[in-house]
């Protein structure tokens, strides 16, 4: 009985890994069969081998991009959270700032990259700025939504105990909003990676985006793919760092 039952969950648990393996295997087999040159489309094994061989090179450039992403994201948090608090606590401020925020959000941040390079030069400044601009919006919105979603009765409850607004914020409002805020952080950090890499595409001397352009101009498709994997890996790693911090500071409703 037990054995039969455990088959279902086993398949469920590893289904993603199995599918990914199948797809990669298909890729590996189909490239030579289709007659495509490895020069045009390298196989997963070739890419993996290249990553291992070029690890020092990839790491050097990844550090640069990581620094830009983390700085831009940190700025997004430092500006986004206070802005969200101001929007939450002041109706007048909300009315004033929301149209501007939405208007800014409709501008594709990517389109600002050349201008930022023009103003801020070739160094890390335009990349951090772009990562910041692209990541702060989801932080603001998720924080405001999280704070506004609170059950009004909870506020009445703590007020009936004589709580000040300061206490209401730290005992109820903030903890209740944390799942939303962390949701925003996760979206923001993924976007910050995009922002930094786009910045590097426009003008840079270092970073994964720069390395990818180099690979491109040398027709080194394998290194190009290796860089794509490194950029994705960076995003995934940062996502899980935030997920880990979240699991430390919040209690999930549905964990047993």
């Amino acid at each position, binding site marked *: 009985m037990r054995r039969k039952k455990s088959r279902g969950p086993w398949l469920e648990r590893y289904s993603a890994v199995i599918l990914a393996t199948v797809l990669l295997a298909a890729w590996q087999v189909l490239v030579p069969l289709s007659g495509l040159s490895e020069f045009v489309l390298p196989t997963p094994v070739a890419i993996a081998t290249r990553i291992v061989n070029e690890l020092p090179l990839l790491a050097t450039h990844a550090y640069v991009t990581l620094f830009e992403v983390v700085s831009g994201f940190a700025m997004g948090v430092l500006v986004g959270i206070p802005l969200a608090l101001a929007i939450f606590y002041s109706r007048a401020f909300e009315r004033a700032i929301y149209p501007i925020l939405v208007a800014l959000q409709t501008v594709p941040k990517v389109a600002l990259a050349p201008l930022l390079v023009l103003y801020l030069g070739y160094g890390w400044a335009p990349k951090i700025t772009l990562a910041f601009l692209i990541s702060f919006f989801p932080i603001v919105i998720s924080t405001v939504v999280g704070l506004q979603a609170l*059950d009004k*009765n*909870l506020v*009445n*409850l*703590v*007020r*009936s*105990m*004589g*709580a000040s607004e300061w*206490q209401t914020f730290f*005992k*109820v409002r903030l*903890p*209740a909003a944390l799942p939303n805020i962390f949701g925003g952080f996760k979206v923001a950090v993924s976007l910050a990676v995009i922002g930094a890499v786009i910045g590097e595409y426009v003008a840079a001397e270092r970073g994964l985006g720069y390395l990818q352009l180099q690979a491109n101009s040398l027709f080194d498709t394998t290194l190009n793919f290796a860089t794509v994997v490194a950029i994705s890996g960076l995003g995934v790693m940062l996502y899980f760092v935030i997920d880990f911090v979240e699991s430390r500071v*919040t*209690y999930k*409703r*549905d964990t047993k």
Partner: protein
Amino acid sequence: MNAIVQTGAAVDISRLSKIYKTREDEDVVALDKIDLKFEPGTFVAVVGPSGCGKSTLLSLLAGLIGASTGTIAIDGEAISKPHPKIGVVFQSDLLLYWRTVLENILLPIEIKRLDVARYRGRAEELLAQVGLEGFGNKYPSELSGGMRQRVAICRALIQEPGLLLMDEPFGALDALTREQMIMDLQSMWMRLGNTVLFITHGIDEAVFLADRVLVMSPRPGRVDLDLNIDMPRPRQWSRIHENKDYHGYVRKIRDIFEAKGILVAH
């Protein structure tokens, strides 16, 4: 185990009115010049339809809203903001899901900046009294609806409220759980002795639990009937229907609602 005994507070409500403004700037009189006196340790129930001002009365006593006219005094002390002698139990348990049961009960102690460690034992005693011994380290999501409301009651009681306000506390519970909670509330109150203001839609639970039932009706919110319930305690919920007095009290309350058109006989 030391029995916890709390002291009931005297409540004096005088010429109390609350007038709300609608969007169209019209006045809505939620409460109209109410005069009430509660002796210390009395269990007072308020019944009435939605909009009769009973929730407004509770919010005023809790200090959550200000009165338009009139005064409220607890043990002779006029109140205009939340008072430390008052504890509130709401319709939903309003437990914070990220805190354990014990941390939830100790929330008012934290907010009042009292010594949390000193109240921990008392919180555990209260939990034991409501039949939840050993549940202190569980999270609210691990408890049933009835258990959660018991924790909410403990959270109000740890403040040693002279006046315990209960706003339809069993309204969200299933019928069987509600019956048990009504019985348990009676025995708990008989041990503790707080003054209680219990707001409900249920005529049966009002008459069963209270020393005194206030019947209210809307537009404007007024007390139509102030009924003393004279039945010996402890009362048995399962046998209350055999009690002639009980039926007499229920009849009187129903008569008011029928006269006002709130209940229509067919």
